[in-house]
């Protein structure tokens, strides 16, 4: 096909710029909002997804990880006695008040773990070691929250619920979905910081023995250990994500913004492609008079839409990459996994082609007899 679509598209540079601006705006807005959604989702369940556990044992009716309810730590022995269980550890995860040097208080989420066990250890350490948590009153927190908590260096001492807390390490990228940063420490310290009794725990994490059947072990745990719920890591992760993203409405708000971006992009592209079509309506009439079927004319318009989509997508993704990179240092990371980037291409294409349908409808009704008028 002679390059009618491309030539018409690039002929009016101002209109093309408007079309591309609309597409870039839509692409960036959708990427940012979806990226925030993905980032939030990953953040809400980070503690669970990085736990290294196969099963989570909680008290009854615990909807998400921040809502742990204390139960007897004696159940740990019952869990460990079960065939198929290679390892089981107690974990504290609960709120506490952090006192800054200036006297202000901030809410934090204490995560208490067994330092000698692989499960629920802090990840992505950039300063210090997990073993440093064995020293008295040791805590590790994420460097992102240094300013919020008034921390400037390793070794600084603070107060949590009246108890001493000494910074021994920093992680990078462990975000909290709430405004309360995670603070990793030993199980014993965590009990002090959260006011948990010595014979209590919030969660028991279970690692299966090689070859053990997940569902079977879960059923046996439910039979043997009373008054608890047993979730797979995937289940508990999903529950926590669902709570924060949908029950609170936070995720819905972000998704609505993404949809708005799509709508804006659609409207802008529809309008500009329609305007271009109207500018060239006589040419389309001539094409029809020459004997072109409607499908040929549609192809010209679709090609224009597709070319606009490709260029707009590339430009939009360039901007998006910068935005995503810039967000990594912030409290809300925007994530753009490869499937999302690829999916964004097809969404952009669908948006532009869908927008072109308005013009398709117009050219369908062009009367070829118009070519005889002046």
């Amino acid at each position, binding site marked *: 096909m002679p390059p009618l679509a491309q030539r018409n598209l690039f002929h009016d540079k101002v209109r093309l710029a408007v079309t591309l601006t609309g597409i870039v705006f839509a692409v960036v807005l959708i990427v940012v909002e979806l990226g925030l959604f993905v980032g939030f989702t990953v953040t809400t369940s980070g503690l669970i997804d990085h736990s290294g556990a196969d099963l989570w044992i909680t008290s009854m009716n615990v909807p998400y990880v921040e809502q742990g309810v204390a139960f007897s730590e004696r159940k740990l022995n019952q869990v460990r006695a079960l065939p198929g269980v290679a390892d089981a550890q107690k974990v504290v995860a609960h709120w506490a008040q952090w006192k800054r040097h200036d006297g202000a208080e901030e809410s934090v989420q204490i995560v208490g773990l067994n330092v000698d066990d692989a499960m629920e250890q802090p990840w992505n350490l950039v300063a210090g070691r997990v073993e440093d948590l064995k020293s008295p009153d040791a805590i590790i927190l994420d460097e992102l929250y240094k300013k919020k908590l008034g921390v400037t260096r390793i070794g600084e001492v603070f107060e949590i619920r009246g108890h001493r807390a000494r910074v021994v390490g920093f992680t990078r990228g462990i975000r909290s979905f709430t405004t309360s940063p995670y603070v990793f420490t030993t199980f014993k310290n965590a009990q002090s910081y959260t006011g948990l009794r010595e014979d209590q725990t919030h969660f028991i994490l279970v690692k299966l023995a090689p070859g053990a059947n997940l569902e079977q072990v879960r059923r046996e745990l439910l039979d043997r250990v009373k008054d608890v719920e047993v979730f797979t890591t995937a289940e508990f992760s999903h529950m926590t994500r669902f709570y924060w993203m949908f029950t609170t409405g936070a995720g819905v708000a972000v998704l609505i913004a993404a949809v708005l971006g799509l709508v804006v992009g659609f409207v802008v592209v529809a309008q500009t492609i329609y305007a271009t079509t109207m500018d060239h309506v006589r040419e389309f009439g001539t094409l029809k*008079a020459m004997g072109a079927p409607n499908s040929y004319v549609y192809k010209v318009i679709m090609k224009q839409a597709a070319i606009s989509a490709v260029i707009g997508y590339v430009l939009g993704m360039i901007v998006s990459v910068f935005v995503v990179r810039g967000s990594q240092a912030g409290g809300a990371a925007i994530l753009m996994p490869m499937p999302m980037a690829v999916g964004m291409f097809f969404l952009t294409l669908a948006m532009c082609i869908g927008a072109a349908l308005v013009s398709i409808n117009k050219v369908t009704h062009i009367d070829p007899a118009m070519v005889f008028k002046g």
Partner: protein
Amino acid sequence: MHPAIAVRQLTKTYAEGNTVTVALRGVDIDVHPGELLMLMGPSGSGKTTLLSIMGCILTASSGSVQIAGKEITQLTEKQLPAIRLEHVGFVFQGFNLFPTLTASENVELMLDLKGVAAKLAKKRAAELLDQVGLGGKHHSFPSDLSGGEKQRVAIARALAGDPGIILADEPTAALDSHTGKNVMEMMSELAHKRGRAVVIVTHDSRVLSFADRIVRIEDGAIVGMDSSQMEPVPAGILAHNFSQPGLNEIATESMESLS
């Protein structure tokens, strides 16, 4: 030889609310291969409507229209483009070239519609442009061409589909005398040397001498015919003396012999 276009009792009406406008009333006309026929008449007389129906752009309200022996009045709107593509080439008053395509690409577009492969289309377009005297202008855009050159590109495009019928709507209206004469010489060649049936709607009295027949239309009906060859006049045609003295007598004698 079968006519390229055969029209019998053609009527075209338009309904607008309670008003019915009769654009053509009972038109009978044949156009043969190798013939150059001109349609003349005042504005609103129906000549462009007749041309549009011959070109399968408009449908008739009643009557018969055959294109290359095929009855088209029973075809649906969706089927007409294929007939146009196969049998009809158009030349327009305003040239109707695609401004963002070169002269060659304008011709290649027609060939693309016919399903000709791109490489072959390019070659064929070059040949056609050479034939119409635009050898050095293949890569020129319409904005770089004169009116006459644009019309030559339009003629090359019309020929690209190898149609048996060429329909031209005021092809010389936007051209000066000299250029218009050149274009008409080309149209004449299409008819007399290449055997196409050529129908031209025109107001331009300068080009009448190129016609084999001149048909005058008024108020949707044929009111006169001037022919350089005395062909039998089908019943229902009225003949008036408008370009050759004594035409009335000849027409009257033909009418009497038919009855």
